[in-house]
């Protein structure tokens, strides 16, 4: 964990109330794992008082001189955020060149090592802003494939097996579709009002895909060959959505990892303010989480 003053590289509106913040924080970028977060102090005074937690959305190299093929030097971390309250309103006003006091990387990330071995299908399920940590995860799954799979065809096989389900109220809240496609993932969309893709909850879409794949038991291009026996679900979104994902995973006897949200005060495990009820008692979302195996949570 590091506490540092990170220089703002960029803070751009993506669309509507969604912004992308790019910070220079090499120590954090080098260590960061998908699912981890940073605590950002927005403003120097008492309003807001506490730091605000943000998932690490992506990490990238700082400048072209660092484009070394073997081991990239990650310098930048990216945060995707929605302007909702006082904190994010202030954050949206920050300009390139300013500094932000940040702490990270925090928490336990996704365990994605077992994925991407070419056999397992991977399903990423995002509800609204839940897309934020999943882009980083998709990037890692695709780019850290075992070397034996680096050949074109095998690689294509794995990326095709990474399905991303994006859910939102309307098409306007669908984020990062292009980014996932650029990574080679298959993207499916669900909107509550049917303004894009499947009409209904993203969890219903998830169920449909699993049912179809279960019934056919064949590699269907349309559903990116979800081999159900080996599928892993990674989900991030509102609590009811994660609960539904957990139930679906249980029903099909597949594993799911969920990213939980909580009111985080310290973010470093000291205050015990952000616990969640698990089969092993209360656990800290900021420390043992925010990623938990869905079956571990008492929903």
């Amino acid at each position, binding site marked *: 964990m590091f506490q540092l003053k990170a220089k703002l590289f960029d803070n751009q509106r993506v669309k509507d109330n969604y912004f992308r913040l790019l910070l220079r924080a090499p120590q954090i970028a080098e260590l960061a794992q998908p699912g981890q977060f940073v605590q950002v102090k927005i403003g120097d005074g008492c309003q807001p008082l506490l730091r605000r937690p943000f998932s690490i959305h992506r990490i990238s190299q700082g400048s072209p001189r660092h484009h070394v093929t073997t081991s990239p030097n990650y310098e930048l971390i990216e945060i995707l955020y929605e302007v909702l309250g006082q904190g994010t309103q202030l954050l949206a006003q920050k300009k390139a060149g300013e500094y932000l006091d940040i702490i990270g990387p925090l928490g336990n990330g996704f365990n994605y090592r077992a994925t991407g071995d070419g056999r397992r299908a991977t399903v990423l399920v995002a509800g609204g802003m839940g897309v934020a940590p999943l882009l980083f995860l998709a990037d890692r799954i695709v780019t850290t494939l075992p070397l034996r799979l680096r050949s074109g065809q095998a690689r294509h096989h794995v990326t095709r097996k990474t399905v991303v389900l994006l859910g939102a109220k309307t098409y306007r809240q669908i984020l990062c579709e292009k980014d996932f496609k650029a990574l080679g993932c298959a993207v499916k969309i669900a909107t509550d009002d049917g303004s894009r893709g499947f009409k209904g909850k993203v969890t219903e879409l998830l169920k449909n895909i699993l049912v179809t794949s279960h019934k056919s038991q064949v590699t269907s291009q349309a559903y990116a060959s979800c081999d159900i026996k080996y599928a892993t679900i990674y989900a991030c979104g509102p609590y009811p959505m994660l609960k539904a994902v957990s139930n679906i995973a249980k029903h099909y006897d597949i594993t799911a990892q969920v990213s939980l949200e909580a009111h985080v005060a310290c973010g470093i495990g000291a205050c015990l303010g952000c*616990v969640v009820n698990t089969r092993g008692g209360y656990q800290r979302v900021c420390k043992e989480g925010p990623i938990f195996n869905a079956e571990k949570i008492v929903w």
Partner: protein
Amino acid sequence: MKQTNLEVKIGKLRLKNPMMVASGTFGYAEEFKDFIDLRQLGAIVTKTITLAPRQGNPMPRTCETPAGMLNSIGLENPGIDKFIAEKLPALKKIGAPVIVSIASEDDPQEFTALARRLDKLKEVAGIELNISCPNIRGTTSPRHHVTRLIAQDAKAADEVVRAVRKVTKKTLITKLSPNVTDITEIALAAEKAGTDAVSLVNTFTAMSINVETRKPKIALAVAGLSGPAIRPIALRMVWEVYQKISVPIIGMGGIMDTSSALEFFLAGASCVSVGTANFINPRATIEIIAGIKQYLRENKIKDIKALIGNLNI
């Protein structure tokens, strides 16, 4: 110029500087080892320990309020046995004096039982009696027929401090509640009963409501308010207590930086504790120690003790 002297004495305990951490805001110190050199702290006060493990209160437990925050953790802790077995060894290794905060949901006898256990351990430098946690049930006093905290009843405070004093010679600190009409009454009772120091203040009982859902923002509705919002009241209470008692005061309540820490010394505190600020800036304690040193040097004050209660009034 000679180096400034930051040393202070609390009971038998000689602290290299007056910087402590408020119980419950610093975990068991390990959470902060990535950020600061823990040895530099005057003393470490642990999260409150109870006899049996406690799960703590339901969620949500915290929320932000104007210049402050509410918490209702409910003394979640692994219990004394697990604390001694699993947390204390690492705390001891740090090298800073360890003060163990203890409490009981509703049985004053437990304080004595806990103190007896801790008295035998040489790695424990002192004991803080948390008789003022606002997020527990409290005791039903036969005299009053109402449930209240020990720190809200001078007689009850006297009994607990007296009983613990009998079983331990370790430095004893009593943590007071601001949720009383006259805090000096309780401070005096604790002093008479043999406490070596008082620490004040614990959090203020408070509420916050989400008007859309009409639900309280904290599961149990009422919680404890901390942070800069309470500082002026905490400071006033330290000043009032300072004029009445002679044992040292550990001042706390919204200390965020050097100047807010200095306020507490001037109001009469011998030591200060950083609480909520640890959540926002894990380096706050260390930065404030450096800031105090600088202030003393700039004002040509050789000893921190010269500052205590030295208010121009």
